[in-house]
């Protein structure tokens, strides 16, 4: 294996290059963009919450099952606000009672 000055593997000649597969369609990907599905094979990706197949993080819906992505913030932010309101109400009640 060829190493650069940082000790990391350098790009190999095409004949020796390991087979890369597109993370979205599993087709052999020889370039940044997949020749089969056309998507960026190096893009951040996440599993679909319904069918568990990979989809790019910047796509709002799964191409396979159509399920839309729902962020965890949908329930975390309201929960955090509720906890703070609860804390203020409890501290107010304690202050009044005492």
């Amino acid at each position, binding site marked *: 294996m060829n190493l650069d*000055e940082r000790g990391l593997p*350098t790009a190999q000649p095409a004949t020796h290059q*390991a087979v890369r597969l597109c993370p979205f369609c599993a087709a052999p990907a020889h370039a940044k963009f997949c020749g089969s599905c056309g998507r960026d094979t190096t893009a*951040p990706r*996440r599993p679909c919450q319904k069918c568990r197949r990979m989809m790019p993080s910047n796509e709002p819906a799964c191409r396979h099952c159509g399920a839309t992505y729902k962020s*965890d913030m949908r329930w975390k932010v309201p929960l955090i606000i509720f906890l*703070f309101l*609860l*804390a203020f109400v409890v501290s107010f009640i304690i202050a009044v009672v005492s």
Partner: protein
Amino acid sequence: MARFSDPNVPATAFTPYLEPGEQLRHWAYGVKQPSMLLILPLYLLAILPGAIAVALLTKEYIVGLTDRRFIVLRFKGKNIDVQEVIDYPLNSLPPLKASTGALFTHIKINDPAKPFVAKFHRLGMPGNREHGMAMEAALTGKTA
């Protein structure tokens, strides 16, 4: 204290994301907490809800260094339910900073398309510090 008592558990989480013939060399568990500009007001407002809020807003990662890529898995839960996968080919790494202190190894990748920053506590899992330092050395070219 440790998030994972068995270091092989996070290692196996990489299996579905490795390419044919790709070898996982080092892996580590890390977190990204919200900004201190958010943590401080949350704690000042109320300590217990602030602590819960910070825990809810903290992102958990396991990162792996293979012979080809630096792979980041954002996950949740004890069973490593992967939420997002980011990978950086080692032969075209973006600018990055990595350092190790007394408790944490910090890795920050300044890629405008897929930025990543996390810190890896030495007690995150058995061998977390050694793996973190080995990755720091490999990514920055320092001698471990």
